């Protein structure tokens, strides 16, 4: 951390954050990596979770296959996927997106499936009694029950993914991590502290925003 003198506060600050606009762009890229990854992972996880739920799919083999693959996606660390994808797709943010997406898919798929397994089955029976297909049952009886929980888990995962995306750059998968890595390697500690501070503030703001959103969603739910 550099010296901040009260008398030259603004110039000292400007010197400390000398590259703030460049870092801000990289931070935006990091956030986008996290967002796109969460979106992709959540979409696939959303579809797969219904196949992993014991109350909707009676075929034990199909369920086990889906569950094991979700487990695999979740257990292999995201950064390992990033390393592999950087190798296959080249440097850049896209391997980071895919790595975040796969990890998210594994984690959210499991959480979603747990929500689905705890639903009230009466609406499902009701919809089935009208002669609806399996997809229609899921759409009209299951989804309305689980949606608010799904959204809340997805927001939590997005928070985690912002942190995850901030280190993807260490292996060359886009975002602020690359800049941080190079300044740590060059012992440029005033840069390190500036970047870290920006990451912490961003994570903090995201946490705050998603927490607000989640509370509002829960409020709506209780209101009903």
């Amino acid at each position, binding site marked *: 951390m550099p010296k901040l003198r009260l008398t030259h506060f603004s110039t000292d600050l400007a010197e400390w954050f000398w590259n703030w606009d460049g870092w801000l762009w990289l931070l935006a*890229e990091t956030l986008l990596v996290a967002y*796109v990854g969460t979106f992709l992972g959540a979409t696939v996880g959303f579809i797969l979770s219904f196949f992993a739920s014991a109350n909707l799919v009676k075929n034990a083999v199909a369920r086990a296959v889906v569950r094991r693959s979700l487990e695999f996606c979740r*257990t292999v660390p995201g950064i390992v996927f990033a390393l*592999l994808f950087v190798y296959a797709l080249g440097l*850049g*943010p896209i391997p980071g997106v895919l790595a975040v997406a796969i990890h998210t898919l594994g984690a959210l798929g499991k959480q979603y499936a747990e929500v689905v397994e705890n639903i009230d089955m009466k609406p499902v029976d009701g919809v089935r009694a009208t002669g*609806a297909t399996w997809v*229609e049952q899921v759409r009209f009886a299951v989804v309305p029950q689980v949606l608010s929980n799904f959204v809340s888990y997805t927001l939590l995962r997005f928070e985690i993914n912002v942190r995850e995306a901030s280190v993807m750059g*260490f292996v060359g998968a886009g975002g602020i991590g690359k800049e941080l890595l190079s300044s740590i390697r060059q012992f440029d500690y005033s840069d390190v502290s500036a970047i870290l501070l920006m990451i912490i503030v961003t994570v903090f703001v995201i946490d705050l925003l998603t927490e607000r959103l989640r509370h509002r969603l829960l409020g709506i739910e209780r209101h009903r």
Partner: protein
Amino acid sequence: MMSQAPLLADTDRARLTHAYPAVFKPSLLKRIQTVTIIVAIVGLFLFGMVWLGFSFEKLATGISRLGVILGLMFPPSPGALLHLYLKGLAETLAIAFLGTMLAAILAFPLAFIAAKNVVGQRVVHFLSRRFLDTIRGVDTLIWALIFINVVGLGPFAGILAVAMSDIGSFGKLFSEAIETADTKPVDGVTATGGSELHQIRFGIVPQVLPVILSQVLYYFESNTRSATVIGIVGAGGIGLYLSNEINQQNWDHVSFIILMILFTVAAIDFVSARLRRSMIAGSQGRSERK
């Protein structure tokens, strides 16, 4: 399917529409709101794809290359380096264990400071909570990089990194456990003339200890996962070998190491889930006997 179902008689339909107007005609405002939210979410996604330079050609070549890599991964084999990998794995476990322990020991007193019912001061509560939040906001890998510069390459930096990022989580979880603790035992200790330290030691600690232990175990589990990757930046453990083998394109070694990690994590999950269950059962049994 739907077309075959008999249609409702007009009178029935009118009755139902009258009874549940909201179902048949959701308000326009609400519809617009829903559509806007969906468009915004998908739009940001598409914008992100474009901005990050997503292209299907690149993805297609990437996937075909990934297929080749996957083909080379089978059969997984350690080559002649099995003893090195086993040593790396043991080192990873040691890092996770020591890091978790260190964090738990350091976070224990911090949690009492951050708990509302122990230290009544608002300022102290606020500051300690923010401090813990800040620590938690930084990823383990970043701590690992920083500690490598402080103490040099090797597992010691890994231990410190794991410990550092866990202090934040532990401090928060422990202090929440302390805040939800029953106040009656504390009152009891106060009534016998116990000092504040006595109140904590005999009133609170016995209540929160099982909770804390099960959380420590849970974090040991998740730390084995994060300890596998801190080697990638040079902070000890199996991750170093993993990133080396990826860089040297020894794909059969890579898949072997990944399988080793998966098995170890599964084994540790299994053992610690059992331990946690027996611990919770034990504490419940004790309270029933009371």
